[in-house]
């Protein structure tokens, strides 16, 4: 039974199709795994075995009747707590939403249910997705399955750790500046930020509406593609949702071929500031692609120098506005000051008690950036930098099909190490942020282990807007080349977790 957890979602789909496993068996195996290791990993904020097993039993019944809804019908999936769900609480990692249950499902969750997938639980995250380590979760950090003393990345450290620890074959994440890709990088897993508008944001508790995007978190590229094919598509509930006929991402992986593919390597995301082991694995991966027929082109994207600064004006500005809805009136926490108070005093006491330090920091910064006298200089200039970043990418994509870089400058750091230095943690997002500013898709997949610490390293590819399939092509091809070279998957090298301790 426990072997079931080590299969990919695609393999589990085959097992379901040929009758060698049932959804109830697969779901129970993952629930058992969660019970065995999640006290240590803390990937999940909420699990309800009864609800998951009922969905699994319904899937088995459909399949027995010859009415499976999708190849992945019956496969369990973990859901980042930023996506609202009607049968599980949704907190976005914040005390201000503790215990809150949404009256509606987020569209990506609806699509999973309509395809028959089995929601396993809600995964931990930095509060309102603000952070790169999950240490800003109000419910305590998630730990990296490769080393429990290290961060699993953020904000979606819970989803990445859940798939890395074999607690779920699939998960959903959200990526505003790297929250899907950076956790994939530090946990040896795969994460995709689709084109902005490719996946509905309806029911995703908004951080920065012009940057947020929902995407797949998995252990391999094909699984991500199959999940992507389910969640993508237009949604009338999201006015930024694209009306685009998406090709099958799974087909792109199955037909992966890099012969003649032009890959740009960004000079600004190479060399100084990057850990040697991160660069070594990156350059090896690029050489491997070149040896297999890809053409490598050096690219300069000068505006990236200002991207992090622009991001940390745009994001707090949008967040300060989005988080105004947590006002103690319609849902969530209400704290009344001693002796009562006006509604404004109640709101202020509630938000003081309900928000953590990083959320307050960013709301105050955003309020500053938007205030009279500063708006043009800060928020206005940041939006202009955004134009420069888009122009740089547009010029780059005239010369190449995809752009490659290390996903992040370092491997996983120790819990607590960067907590006192927000600017240092923010700088770690320099390779992932530009894609969000430009609205283009990005993937991170494992490139190997860093020599100096034996920890996972990811490689990132970016493609023009609406060309997500290119990421699955190059990602699928590189994954296969690396697995052939190593003779195993990267995750099979992760140390075994202590099982059943409690």
């Amino acid at each position, binding site marked *: 039974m426990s072997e079931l957890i080590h299969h990919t979602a695609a393999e589990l789909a085959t097992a379901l199709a040929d009758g060698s496993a049932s959804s109830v068996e697969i779901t129970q195996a993952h629930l058992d795994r969660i019970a065995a290791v999640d006290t240590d990993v803390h990937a999940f904020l909420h699990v309800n075995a009864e609800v998951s097993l009922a969905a699994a039993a319904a899937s088995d019944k459909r399949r027995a009747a010859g009415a499976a809804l999708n190849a992945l019908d019956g496969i369990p999936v973990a859901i980042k707590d930023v996506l609202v769900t009607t049968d599980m609480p949704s907190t976005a990692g914040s005390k201000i939403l503790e215990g*809150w249950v949404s009256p*509606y499902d987020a569209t990506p969750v609806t699509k999973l249910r309509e395809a028959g997938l089995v929601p396993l639980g809600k995964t931990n995250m930095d509060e309102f997705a603000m952070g790169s380590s999950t240490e800003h979760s109000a419910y305590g950090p998630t730990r990296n399955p490769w080393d429990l003393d290290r961060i699993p990345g953020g904000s979606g450290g819970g989803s990445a750790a859940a798939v890395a620890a074999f607690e779920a074959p699939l998960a959903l994440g959200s990526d505003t500046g790297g929250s899907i890709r950076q956790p994939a990088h530090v946990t040896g897993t795969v994460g995709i930020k689709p084109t*902005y*508008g490719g996946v509905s944001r309806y029911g995703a508790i908004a951080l920065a509406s*012009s*940057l947020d995007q929902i995407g797949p978190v998995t252990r391999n590229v094909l699984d991500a593609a199959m999940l992507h094919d389910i969640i993508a598509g237009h949604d*009338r*509930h999201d*006015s*930024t949702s*694209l009306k685009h006929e998406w090709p099958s991402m799974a087909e792109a992986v199955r037909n992966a071929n890099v012969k003649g593919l032009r890959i740009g390597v960004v000079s600004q995301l190479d060399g100084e500031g990057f850990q040697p082991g991160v660069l070594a694995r990156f350059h090896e991966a690029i050489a491997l692609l070149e040896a297999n027929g890809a053409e490598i082109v050096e690219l300069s994207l000068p505006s990236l120098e*200002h991207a992090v*600064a*622009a991001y*940390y*004006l745009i994001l707090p500005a949008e967040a300060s506005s989005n988080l*105004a809805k947590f006002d*103690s*009136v*319609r*849902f*969530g*926490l*209400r704290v*009344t*000051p001693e002796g*009562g108070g*006006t*509604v*404004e005093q*109640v709101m*202020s006491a509630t*938000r*003081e008690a309900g*928000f953590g*330090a990083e959320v*307050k*920091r960013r*709301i*105050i*910064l955003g*309020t*500053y*950036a938007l*205030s009279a006298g500063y708006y043009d*200089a*800060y928020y206005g*200039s*940041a*939006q*202009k*930098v*955004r*134009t*420069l970043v888009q122009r740089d990418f547009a010029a780059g994509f005239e010369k190449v099909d995809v752009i490659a870089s290390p996903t992040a400058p370092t491997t996983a750091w120790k819990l607590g190490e960067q907590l006192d230095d*927000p*600017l240092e943690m923010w700088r770690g997002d320099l390779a992932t942020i530009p894609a969000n500013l*430009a609205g*283009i898709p990005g993937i991170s997949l494992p490139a190997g282990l860093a020599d100096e610490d034996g920890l996972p390293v990811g490689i990132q590819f970016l493609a023009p*807007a609406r060309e997500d399939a290119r990421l699955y092509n190059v990602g699928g091809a590189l994954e296969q080349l690396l697995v052939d070279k190593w003779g195993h998957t990267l995750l099979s090298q992760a140390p075994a977790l202590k099982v059943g301790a409690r």
Partner: protein
Amino acid sequence: MSDISEESVRHLAGLARIALTDAEVTALTAELSQIVDVVAQVTSAVDADTPATSHPIPLSNVYREDVVTDDVLTPEQALASAPEHDGSRFKVSAILGEEQ
């Protein structure tokens, strides 16, 4: 150097409706000064001729039919998570203070 003082942080916290403690005001004043010094680089990175981008993939005229669909919340659903309500409305404490 930025012009962030404890007084300006208190003002911003008031606008943002967060009742910061004195210790938080002191800490945030130092942090925000540092952060603003770094992010202020955007002002020298662009010129007046550069257009602003507010949205990565701009769409225009996103309309829907002006009809009520079956996926709007019922009043009961809308009120279900409210800290306090009277069955048809959200209840809050006094809007105005005594001095207003």
